[in-house]
């Protein structure tokens, strides 16, 4: 058994860290709260690093890497709150490649920017494909898909889709009259497509609410399993980003707890403070373990992708929430001001837990898979 990163994976991670270090992403996440235009466009960096084609097979111009490799990049982006185009583009690229879409090579090379509009696979008590609603607790119906030969027309609204506002092509998931999921490639500028580019609370995450009114595109030849995989890949990527953010929060908090003194001693020596920091570590390491599991499921045990990536998102979400609040607490009052980066972590945590189904939905999915008898069966040798 060897769970260490391969040399290639180490290289991929170091390269991502190196590229991201050349842009002041954390500063930008603060400044852009007042002036969105200062937020750096990381598409050129992503293209240079080959991220858009990371998951696309080599014969279609991609790098042919796996989900775990993509998670390593997401983790680095999360460390520095980078507005890296990953959550929208990577699952889109997975579906384009699976469906052998004609746009795939252009997406791999970065000529075309793609984003998918996340759709949640059915579960025991929600038999339909659903999307994030504009507001409210109820899930929204996935866009209605009308198929006519190789073309498909969509009607509906998908809210809060990551990176949708920057995309040239959208991978839309709808549901047809029979209840089956239908994926289609729609140009962002096509008739009947309107994209409301926006952000909420955490400006380093670009979002788009997409309204489709008779928007027509090319039907993508992918299965329900492929589309479900795109959803779980998004869950795993959010988990990986969260892990990176938690790592950074823990490092900063530990350093401060060693240098800040009260009543004649470092605050990190107080048990209450120490235990809070160790709790971040505990959740961080649990997340790391589950990301390994999720990576293994994507590469080796497709039947456990839903369970593993949902478990990862669930634990990662809890870790990020906890770390964000603890980081503020360790730093005292200053941690709740713009003088410090802790509020940016907090903003990231607040938004992340409510995107793409939300952390709570991932937790519910873990239970759903278990009750349905689809928990972990494959044991390591």
């Amino acid at each position, binding site marked *: *058994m*060897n*769970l*260490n990163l*391969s040399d290639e994976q180490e290289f991929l991670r170091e390269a991502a860290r190196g590229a991201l270090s050349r842009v002041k992403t954390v500063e930008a996440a603060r400044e852009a709260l007042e002036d969105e235009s200062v937020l750096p466009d990381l598409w050129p960096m992503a293209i240079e690093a080959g991220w858009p084609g990371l998951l696309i097979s080599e014969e279609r111009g991609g790098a042919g890497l796996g989900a*775990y490799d993509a998670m390593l990049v997401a983790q680095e982006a999360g460390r520095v709150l980078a507005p890296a185009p990953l959550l929208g583009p990577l699952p889109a690229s997975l579906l384009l490649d699976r469906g052998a879409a004609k746009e795939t090579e252009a997406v791999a090379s970065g000529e075309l920017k793609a984003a998918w509009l996340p759709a949640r696979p059915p579960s025991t*008590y929600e038999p339909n494909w659903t999307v994030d609603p504009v507001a409210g607790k109820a899930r929204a119906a996935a866009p209605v898909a009308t198929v006519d030969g190789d073309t498909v027309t969509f009607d509906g609204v998908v809210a809060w889709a990551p990176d949708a506002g920057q995309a040239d092509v959208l991978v839309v998931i709808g549901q047809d009259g029979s209840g089956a999921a239908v994926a289609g490639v729609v140009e962002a500028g096509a008739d009947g497509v309107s994209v409301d580019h926006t952000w909420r609370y955490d400006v380093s995450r670009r979002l788009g609410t997409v309204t489709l009114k008779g928007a027509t595109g090319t039907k993508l030849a992918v299965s329900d399993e492929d589309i479900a995989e795109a959803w779980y890949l998004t869950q795993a990527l959010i988990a990986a980003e969260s892990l990176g953010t938690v790592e950074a929060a*823990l490092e900063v908090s*530990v350093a401060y*707890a*060693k240098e800040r003194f009260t009543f004649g*001693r*470092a605050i*990190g*020596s*107080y*048990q209450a*403070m*120490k*235990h809070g*920091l*160790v*709790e971040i*570590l*505990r959740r961080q*390491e*649990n*997340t*790391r*373990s*589950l990301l*390994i*599991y999720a*990576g*293994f499921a994507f*590469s*080796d045990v497709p039947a456990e992708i839903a*369970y*593993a990536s*949902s*478990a*990862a998102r*669930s*634990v990662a979400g*809890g870790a990020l929430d906890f770390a964000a609040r603890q980081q503020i607490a360790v730093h005292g009052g200053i941690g709740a001001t713009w003088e410090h980066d802790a509020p940016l972590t907090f903003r990231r945590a607040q938004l992340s837990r409510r995107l793409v189904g939300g952390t*709570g939905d*991932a*937790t*519910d*999915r*873990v*239970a*759903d898979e*278990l*009750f349905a008898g689809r*928990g*972990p069966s494959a044991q*390591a*040798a």
Partner: protein
Amino acid sequence: MDLNDTPEQAAYREQIRSWLDEHKAQAPVLQGEGALTDPDEILTARRAWQGQLAEGGLAGATWPKEYGGQGVSPVDGVIISQEMRKARVPGILDVIGVGMLGPTIIAHGSDEQKSRYLGPMLHGDEVWCQLFSEPAAGSDLAAVQTRAKLNDDGSWTLNGQKVWTTNAQFAAYGLLLARTNVDIPKHKGMTMFIVPMDGEGVTVRGLRQISGEAEFNEVFFDDVTIPGDSVVGGVDNGWGVGLTTLMFERLTIGLGSEGFGYNGDRFARAIAGDPAAVKDSDVRHQLGEIAAELEAIRWTGYRSISDLQGGQIPGPEFGLAKVTTVNNAVKAGDLIADVLGPEALAEDNEWAYMISFLPGLKSAGGTEEILRNTIGERVLGLPPEPRLDKGIPFSELRAKEKEGAAA
């Protein structure tokens, strides 16, 4: 990422598997149909089974060959545990002896001690117990008060009390940490001894837990005399010897955390038959959180095996696996009993047993609070809390503590 065995490991696994295929019919049945019920019969059968496992090279396999082991790596040791679990045969009877105390004697014992004690320990002929904890020395183990006084003829006389002693009721020997010098600071004045449990003045009393069962014992020593060659690792060097035992304890517990059988799948099955619970979003949320964290621990275990394979001893942060395991099992017990109602608390119910077992497990092997302190200091590098016992002779420390309590 590779979860597969190396070719050597695969061959070793095959060897273990074929031994088990050949011998598993002789393993004692402890659960289910045809299970043994008489405690004496169970003990005899488990001793014999440990002997067989030792003969087959499955007990104490990580011990060096010269002491009866196979000299295999910790990862091969894990392979044995995995295969035994798959074959559904009981493990060895004396996990504490073979997993922790034997390796301590191998590291610190005299040649005579090694040749006298290790063989019978490995084969289950002589079971051992660990006599470290005391009523006032648990997480702060260096506070032990059991006294060993040197007699003129070179023998030692023991007086004091130990507690939480697993297997003491049928152990032949114990490894005992006692204070031999009260005039020096507490970590320095202790010595490790080998003590025969049938000696005059040794009293073992079962300690009933919440469940009503007595899995642990209290052990009393009243003027117990043991020979001078009972010392392990030198007089006043007991702390260093004890740290070796605790390191092996961490390894034993860390690599065996799956062995408790606490996992999301099992907990889900306990409530899956209740249609109202399966639909209840609060129940689902709680189960999801519990299952996800326990799943993380399974993979944390694989990470530690991967580290071992790379030649690294898993770091202290792996101790957090115990915190996660216990706390989630506590939540699961509450959830299951909330769903099933009072019937879950029937005396012979498996969940009642688990619910009763866990509050004690929380403190076993060091409390959660101490564990978090240790990890905060060793892994995160946070400064320790100021201590009032550093550099103070043990005798004065006791006086100060009494003063403090009176104030």
